[in-house]
């Protein structure tokens, strides 16, 4: 279908941005850091916080906050893309690669369901979190991650729409089958590749 022209609509003249080639289709750059979540922000004290890898109702491995801090962390600069159409370029994070956590358990799972304080979940193929492109992130822009942005720790999976980067994450459930998480059950795409504009179910 050819898109009809919206009479009188023009691109705003704007300085040549550094965004060339970095923006997936349908996205626009924001310099804010908008917040998107379905409910109140949870506040779990660090002394109660753990990150667990579970399978079939059993906890295979669990880390306390100090134990996570002792793991080798990486500082990464990545572009993030929210399904609500904003993208934020060149964001800096510090966190532990998810691969480093998964490597400490024996498993042959194909999928994970990330689970968070507040009941949020999101599903990801194991290959998307084990290939050096996913982190358990706890610093943003050199500072501890703020609660409204998912602190103390969130997933960072920047190659997928940002709802896959679960805020307030507390662990991963290993699965041999794919199981839709929260937004995936409410009409959003199961995989969420921004470059293929997989926003909603069926995209």
């Amino acid at each position, binding site marked *: 279908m050819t898109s009809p022209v919206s009479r009188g*609509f*023009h691109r705003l003249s704007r300085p040549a941005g550094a965004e060339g080639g970095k923006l997936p289709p349908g996205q626009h750059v*924001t310099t804010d850091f908008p917040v998107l979540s379905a409910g109140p922000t949870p506040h779990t004290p660090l002394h109660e916080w753990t990150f667990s890898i579970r399978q079939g109702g059993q906890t295979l491995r669990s880390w306390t906050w100090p134990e996570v801090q002792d793991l080798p962390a990486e500082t990464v600069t990545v572009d993030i893309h929210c399904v609500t159409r904003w993208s934020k370029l060149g964001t800096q994070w510090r966190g532990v690669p998810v691969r480093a956590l998964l490597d400490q358990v024996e498993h042959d799972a194909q999928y994970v369901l990330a689970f968070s304080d507040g009941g949020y979940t999101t599903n990801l193929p194991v290959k998307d979190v084990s290939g050096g492109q996913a982190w358990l992130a706890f610093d943003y822009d050199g500072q501890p991650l703020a609660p409204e942005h998912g602190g103390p720790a969130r997933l960072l999976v920047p190659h997928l729409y940002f709802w896959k980067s679960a805020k307030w994450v507390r662990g991963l459930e290993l699965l041999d089958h794919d199981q839709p998480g929260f937004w995936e059950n409410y*009409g959003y795409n199961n995989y969420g590749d921004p470059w293929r504009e997989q926003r909603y179910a069926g*995209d």
Partner: protein
Amino acid sequence: MAGTAVRGRLSWQVATVAAVIEETDSVRTIALDLPDWPGHRAGQHLDIRLTAEDGYSAERSYSIASADGEPVNITVERLEDGEVSPYLTQELRPGDQMEVRGPIGNWFTWGPHDGGPLLLIAGGSGVVPLRAILRHRQRSRSSVPVRLLYSSRSLADVIYREELDQYGRSAEVNYTLTRSQPPDWGGFSGRVDDAMLARVAWPASQRPLAFICGPTPFVEAVAELLVARHYLSGRVKTERFGGA
């Protein structure tokens, strides 16, 4: 608690502007003629795509302002440095076309079967999806008790004021004006705080269902206050704005 799965792909369709209604100096409601609209539920949103003559296009999401079964309306607030909202609020006129797809989002929605009592808390143009919920409640003759607390800068910035004031006793509408109040103002003043919620919010013992929509700091603050008042996290639904 699986939501309603969206069947198939949401395709873009051509919408024609049926009417524009100026709500305030910076806010406009746009009625869309959408021949293939599959229907929506109160609280959902849609995507629009504008295409310029040179082929440049821009997409944005907007909350649907109308109730289930009503023609699709969106209400848009002008952001001065925005690319799309100044066009929609100043240039657009009846007969113009754009593309639309939706409806989207099955979480921040309400229907009579979801029950209540309902507490709707709006900051600025965050009132839009809550207005759809109020209208749907009214049109479906639901007896679920509802209270709206609507925070606005001034009385002149209140969107849908005439309509909201018509509810009378069937829906309890409370305003708080944060920047300026008329001399004879009988409503609340200032930001939503715990003292205000002590008067407006249903007691947690009634298991209220809360919907909060507005700018992020507003939503964060109000959600925290409700949780501190022992509202169940899972019954406090939030939707936030951000970006331009």
